[in-house]
């Protein structure tokens, strides 16, 4: 019996030590607030859109992200009006809602930004309800929306009143489409897009807050090589698309 306990205890201890040292666990990020205890459901305060094309519901959550998708015969406008009326605004603060998107943040932790993205597709509308912990610091403009499927790289810095955040776009694929979609999200969230370049090698945009015109933004995407090729027979360089987002006074200069 003692031997069994010895083997069981030692083997488990080795496994725990190994998982911790090898970084195979969550790495200190333990779910709280809107990401916890979902069990395939939606975060509290965010309702499902009920009038769906049968069998279209789905979703998933990852480290600091959540996304839920559905398809409905209703128009985007109808979907967004539904969410304006039914999101629990004690939990979520809506910062903008327009033609095709809606933006909100989690009141308990404003670094968590979310939204509803709609895409009209002939007779149906695709709905994406998402939220992401962008790890934004206190003071970051509350009305500046987040973007679907981006992942924060590090914590935004504050350079003379301008917040500089970096977002990984690996979950999106095409940076041109990302910039075009984000321009629409900004417009819907009461920001004027003052410049938009979606066709160049490094798509970018600039914007200005309608409520505080001194607050501007710039977003520039570029491809970064994270790990250069080792020169072997297999081209093994690793890269990613990254968006650098600057928000603050004269951030577009």
């Amino acid at each position, binding site marked *: 019996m003692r031997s069994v306990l*010895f*083997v069981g205890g030692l083997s488990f201890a*080795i496994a725990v030590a*190994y998982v911790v040292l090898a970084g195979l666990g969550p790495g200190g990020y333990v*779910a709280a607030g809107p990401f916890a*205890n979902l*069990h395939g459901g939606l975060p509290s305060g965010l309702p499902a859109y009920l009038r769906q094309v049968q069998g279209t519901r789905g979703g998933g959550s990852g480290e600091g992200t959540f996304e839920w998708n559905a398809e409905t015969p209703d128009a985007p406008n109808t979907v967004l009006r539904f969410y304006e009326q039914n999101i629990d605004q004690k939990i979520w603060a809506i910062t903008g809602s327009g033609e095709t998107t809606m933006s909100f943040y989690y009141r308990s932790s404003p670094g968590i930004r979310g939204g509803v993205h709609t895409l009209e597709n002939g007779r149906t509308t695709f709905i994406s309800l998402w939220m992401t912990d962008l790890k934004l610091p206190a003071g970051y403009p509350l009305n500046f929306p987040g973007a679907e499927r981006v992942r924060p790289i590090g914590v935004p810095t504050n350079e003379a009143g301008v917040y500089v955040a970096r977002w990984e776009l690996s979950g999106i694929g095409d940076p041109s489409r990302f910039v075009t979609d984000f321009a629409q999200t900004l417009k819907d969230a009461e920001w004027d897009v003052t410049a938009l370049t979606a066709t160049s090698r490094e798509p970018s945009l600039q914007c200005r807050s309608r409520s505080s015109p001194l607050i501007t933004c710039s977003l520039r995407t570029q491809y970064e090589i994270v790990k250069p090729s080792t020169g072997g027979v297999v081209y093994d360089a690793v890269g990613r698309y990254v968006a650098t987002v600057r928000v603050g006074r004269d951030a577009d200069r």
Partner: protein
Amino acid sequence: MTQLGNARHLIGLSVVLAVYWVPVVMGVGWGMWSGGDPISIATAVSDSVAQEWITLPTRTVPLAALIIGATILALVHLRRSAPRSRAEVIADKLTVALALPYLAISLYLVAVLTWFYIACKLAPCNFLF
């Protein structure tokens, strides 16, 4: 208290058994991450065990040397004719029995990687992986 000097067979068995704990411990960790309640933990452990077993050797490369060492030691002791306690023999047999599936999966992955390397050597593979 088990004397360390007399526990070679138990330590060897523990090392081999530890590798099978890894997906379970990972699942518990991710279950804690996704809520920490029994349902989240059970789901995460179940998913982790289901998803990790085929890639287990790639996740546990640093442990492979210890497992191979423990298996060789167990085999050496099993082949000795000197009288040994029943517990020691059982532990060594279990060590070998538990190490075999792990080593078989490792060999399979090594074979696939070798084939991939040779194929790419013959016709360069210009893609990310």
